[in-house]
């Protein structure tokens, strides 16, 4: 009779022998450094383990499986708090050294003189994220609507894989392309066109441009998903009332897919806000608020990327960078919570 519960399994003598042999194998390994006996008892343990698992009842498998899944889930949640704890603990050094308002509202970032003002970096981050979203959101929405509602089926099937691949391209690839294409383009054409002749090409605008391109495929792909899940009968209902296709898209499909579209925008924002390497490659890495968009800057994420090599020479810098990481973490957390509540409201309001 195979054991039916975990307690039942422990009562089984074979299991006890198995646990004992595992225990013995460790003793021989660590206390006596006897590899032969270690291996012997380990093999006994494994044989018993396999034998037991073949014999255990299906009910026990079920119980073990459920506990394993619970353990996995709990450890993920635990990781969240562990990360938060590490970041807070790491920031204590800099926070006891300087006041919070000094850190956030001063603009001088000079690690060698012990100045860690983040104001300029925070402003740059907001500017870069905002511009990239302003460019990316309308274009991605328009193209998602075109692909989902207007394009012929063949076109849709051809375009879809390209967008999904784009969404998965490593960001350093985008960064490299931006370095080779956008930096000269901004330096030679775009900045002079807007009357800024001294731009090096490494600028807030260049970073925004590459961020918006990285965000496109994510927003498009997620929006397509939610546009496609709008039932055709809902479109028919609107069309049969004499609405045009555009009226249907604007007033019905957009609302029905609204929660999904919002989620896509939130995710896009998260990517733009936290993107590191591509930004760091083209933004110019200067911790200041530039006079124009075509001047160099620094975002929170790229600040960490371009400073972490100095950590060993300036001890307090490590704490300052962890504090920057904490800001990133908290902003993403707040934004996610916000997104969650907006989504809840929207899906109640726009249910069909």
């Amino acid at each position, binding site marked *: 009779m195979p054991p039916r519960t975990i307690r039942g399994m422990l009562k089984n003598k074979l299991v006890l022998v198995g646990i004992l042999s595992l225990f013995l194998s460790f003793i021989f390994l660590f206390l006596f450094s006897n590899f032969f006996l270690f291996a012997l008892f380990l093999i006994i343990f494994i044989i018993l383990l396999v034998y037991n698992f073949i014999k255990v009842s299906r009910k026990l498998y079920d119980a073990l499986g459920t506990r394993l899944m619970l353990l996995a889930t709990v450890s993920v949640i635990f990781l969240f708090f562990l990360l938060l704890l590490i970041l807070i603990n790491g920031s204590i050094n800099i926070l006891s050294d300087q006041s919070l308002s000094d850190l956030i509202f001063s603009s001088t970032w000079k690690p060698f003189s012990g100045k860690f003002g983040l104001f300029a970096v925070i402003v740059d981050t907001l500017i870069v994220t905002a511009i990239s979203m302003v460019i990316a959101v309308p274009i991605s929405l328009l193209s998602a609507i075109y692909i989902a509602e207007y394009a012929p089926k063949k076109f849709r099937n051809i375009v879809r894989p390209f967008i999904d691949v784009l969404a998965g391209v490593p960001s350093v690839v985008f960064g490299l392309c931006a370095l080779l294409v956008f930096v000269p383009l901004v330096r030679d054409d775009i900045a002079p066109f807007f009357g800024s002749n001294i731009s090096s090409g490494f600028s807030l605008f260049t970073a925004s441009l590459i961020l918006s391109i990285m965000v496109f495929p994510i927003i498009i792909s997620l929006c397509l998903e939610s546009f496609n899940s709008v039932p055709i009968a809902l479109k028919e209902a609107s069309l049969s009332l*004499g609405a045009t296709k555009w009226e249907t898209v604007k007033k019905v499909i957009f609302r029905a897919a609204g929660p999904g579209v919002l989620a896509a925008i939130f995710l896009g924002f998260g990517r733009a806000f936290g993107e590191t390497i591509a930004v760091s490659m083209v933004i110019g890495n200067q911790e200041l608020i530039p006079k124009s968009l075509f001047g160099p800057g620094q975002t929170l994420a790229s600040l960490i990327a371009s400073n972490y090599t100095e950590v060993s020479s300036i001890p307090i810098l490590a704490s300052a960078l962890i504090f920057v990481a904490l800001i990133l973490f908290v902003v993403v957390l707040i934004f996610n919570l916000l997104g969650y509540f907006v989504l809840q409201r929207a899906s109640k309001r*726009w249910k069909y």
Partner: protein
Amino acid sequence: MNKSNTIQIETKTLNVTIHNNPVLKNIDIQIPAKQLTAIIGPSGCGKTTLLKSFNRLLEIQDGIKIQGEIVVDGINIMSSGLNVPDIRKKMGLISQKPYPLPMSIFENVAYGLRIHHDKNAKELAEAVQNCLQEVGLWNEVKDRMHDPASRLSVGQQQRLCLARAIAVQPEVILCDEPTSALDPIAAQQIEKLLLKLKKDFTVILVTHTLRQAKRVADHVIFLYFGKVIEQGPAAEFFNNPKNPETKAYLAGEIS
């Protein structure tokens, strides 16, 4: 039955294929105005396809080919250069399962009105109230006009869809098995409404329940494997069917 009734919709050798499978074959039918016409037949015989060809809703799906003429009010709606939304506006559609638009109860009914008429707020509210009274929903919803329509029961939702359809003053109401998702009481309400509405509208009802057709229809069209087997006034159709296949279907021998 009044023989001098005019014809509202007439099809001439209408053929429809979906991904090259013929679904409707040489359909020639006449649908009398201001009557309730039932389209009956076993599932998969093309009833819904026929219904949706009347307001050109078929063509929003992929792989559909339509040939032949559909004449509504003397105009072939299949001819090119027509404004499709205007054609659709003439025909309200009630689907199997009610699909309220993702907005409030009020906005659902006002949706078509806002598109087609330039009404001020007061006129709009009056028109919405009239439509809701017409379908007997007003007393149930007058205190929660701005709740999302999805909170209504399924039966209420179906009546809301009816109110939404008549708000744009169509000539025809196309019903695609409108009671199949409803409980018996809600279904009965819809049936009664359709009988009331046929005074002002031409009602076309697709149904797979013979008893429903017997209860409400003035005129019957029997489809079988994409072909019209028999059509005519209901009394004649049910009491004195001419075609052997119709007899077999009415006797429950084919389905």
